[in-house]
């Protein structure tokens, strides 16, 4: 394989790599979210992970399972992040982090199915419920702000969100069981 010039060789991100990287953004984010329990931290770590993945792109040809590889690198980024923010109270201790990391990784492969299932499950919610959960996840959509908008108490909103999430989870798991039981 040759490139336009020698200096371009190491800099060129091959299209297949970019394709797979972009396709895996959601997978990595979900995986990291399960490790840090916080969406914003997960976004930050996802970005760090992307930087490392791009740097290591030349290994891509030897990688047989991109998602697993990306998750592994994301895991190290989580460890690094925890080291940097030692003063903050961590969500999990090291042992539990390791355990969840191991158990969550295989599930990242079914994320596409989960997303599709979620689309369908959102359709099944009432308009009111769908509206509520979408508002919660829109930019600046905290429970407090949603409560203000709806004129309800944060406690009531939180209870509704719990019900909606439980319903969505049940529906998604049902669909995953239908579609993906064969998946490892």
């Amino acid at each position: 394989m040759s490139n336009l010039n020698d200096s371009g060789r190491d800099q060129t991100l091959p299209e297949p790599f970019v394709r797979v990287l972009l396709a895996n953004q959601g997978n990595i984010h979900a995986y990291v979210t399960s490790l840090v329990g916080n969406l914003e931290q997960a976004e930050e770590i996802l970005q760090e992970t992307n930087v490392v993945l791009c740097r290591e792109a030349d290994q891509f040809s030897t990688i047989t399972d991109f998602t697993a590889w990306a998750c592994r690198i994301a895991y190290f980024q989580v460890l690094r992040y925890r080291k940097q923010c030692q003063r903050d109270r961590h969500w999990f201790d090291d042992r539990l982090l390791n355990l969840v990391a191991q158990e969550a990784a295989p599930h990242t492969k079914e994320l596409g199915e989960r997303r599709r299932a979620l689309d369908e499950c959102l359709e099944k919610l009432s308009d009111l419920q769908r509206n509520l959960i979408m508002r919660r996840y829109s930019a600046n959509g905290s429970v407090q702000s949603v409560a203000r908008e709806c004129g309800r108490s944060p406690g009531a909103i939180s209870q509704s969100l719990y019900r909606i999430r439980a319903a969505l989870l049940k529906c998604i798991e049902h669909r995953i069981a239908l579609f993906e039981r064969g998946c490892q």
Partner: protein
Amino acid sequence: MDKSTGDSERLLRLLSLQTDGLLDNEQSKELIAMVSASKEARQIYIAHMFLHSLMHRAARLTDAVPVLPEELSGSAGTLPDDGSQLGRPTRTLMLDFLGNVFRGGTDFLSRSLVLTLLLAVGLPGILFLLLVLHVTRQPGPVTPLAKITRTHECVWSEGTTALSTGAGVFAGEQLRLTEGLLEITFARGAKVLLEGPATFNVTDAAQGFLHNGSLVAKVQKGAEGFTIQTPAVAVVDLGTEFGVRVDDERGTAEVEVFQGKVELRATAEEGPSRTLRQHLVAGRAARVEVTDRQGALPIIREITPAVVSFVRQIPQVPKRPLVPIKPSDADKPEAAIVADFSGGEGNAQVDQFPGVAGSGWAAGWNVGEAGELKCITSIEQANPLLGGGKYLRVLVERQSGGSGACTCTAVDRRLALTNGVDLTKPHVVSFNFRIDVLNRFGEASDRLSICNRNVSQMEYEREGRPSSGWHICMVGKGNKYAKSGNWALLRRDKKGKPIGVDSGIPPREGNTYSFRILVDPPARQWTPSIAVNGGKWIAFEPMGMRSKGTAKKNGYWPFLYFYCEMEGGNKGEDVEKIGFSVDSIRITPAPAPQAGSISGTGRTTRNRSSFMESWSSFLVGPGDAGTGGLGKACRHCPSDRTEQGHRFRFWHFMSFSSIALAS
């Protein structure tokens, strides 16, 4: 409420609070204790966090908020840049562009357009679009692990990129087929024929993972060791051809070896490293079931081969005949609409030409003449079609030197909806058809068509385009429907566009063609079979009705139609002629499944959400042995002969009612 339900409800409640940032110290400890304590709790935790992440990203997408890392968008430091426009690194170009687009700061695409695009195709879609637009295809350091070498009527699952012949398959790429056949050639030489619906990952240059569906692997000498992983078992090749099918529901794998030998290899997930190895040789098949017990090895059982039948090669075009159909299948005397022309010419009896209404016909024959085309009809006795007695002869002529535009003429006859055969239900149309004369029949616009239609010739001229359900035609010179000039079978493609299937059967003067068409209005499909000069029947696979027409309203097309189009010729040239004869027209109800046959009638759908259900299989039970009757609709019949234990798998959009087993 039992304890575990209560626990999981408590867990979900705590998780919901956690994700909303409302968890207090005590609750936080409680949640961590629960997640630490059991694997089940962690599974719920992970599913919840994934949902959290998915909702977050879904909502952000509709907000069109930048989602790409800023560090990557061409800033200094992380990536070297040689500065020259030509050699500028791809990533910088692309990410600059993406960065701009997502910040809405570019003149090229307005923010609202981006928003519309995002809503319409979603982020992955637009990223892919942008990639296609802005990534120069430079040879990267990555070589594909495999290549797509052939495709056959592939329909890709939603959300996956359709790959065509020649496309490389890279590590981690998942191939998800809804239908069709896909040949994947691995870098190490093994060939896999994947049959949709199926989900398959190319994991390595000599390894793939079959999540569900079936495939046949052919491994040449030197490529031994090629492995197909499945949820239940790994199939390691030892120089062979073998088939693997994975059941979506349980992950059960069925393996059949056609040549050589494979090794079935399974490892227990937990406990001391336990591995199961079993050899399977040519002509043998096995089923591997995952057990419900945690950490237990799967169970391997030997099964009768051909219980699962595999597609071992991409069918040639035209498609191979499946099961020959005997014309006698349709000769059920009890209910039939017949036109045998036994009464000769006249308009007193039903079976005369033009004849009168009755016995399922709503009218006598109509002879349509239009413009410069002249249609001469007669009832003949000499030289009958396959010994069928009196028959109808039609000669259509067009003088040379006309306007050049095609005109139409036809003989047609209107059918009654009921009165004998219910045409809204599956029925069989059969007739013999001889080509007598083809003179100057050499242009793409010279055509002879046989079809059912929803309007008469008169109505057609008054109201415009007719629409046909089933439609068989021949053309003077290959055109878009019939590239080779053979008899063409017109159907609709997946997008609803009418297309032609080349039958591979050439129309020749003097030949008699027997047509037998299974028309299934509820399933909106038709299944033709053709025999030449009383020879062997050639059956084709079911195909979609050519047009939507009024069938949706009426459920049937009430006209049987024979018509011509002619180009004519320059002044002084020969007269263009098409002459044909028709006899033994018979319309009968489709044979119902017989006693001791596969039970159940129904229809599969093409709806995505139910595509899993669109695959159905029947196991032939005790006493069901017999030969396939209308089994041509049965794509996976191992042979004409079906025995107890044979499993039939029905291709989707197939009508079950067209399946019958004669005992």
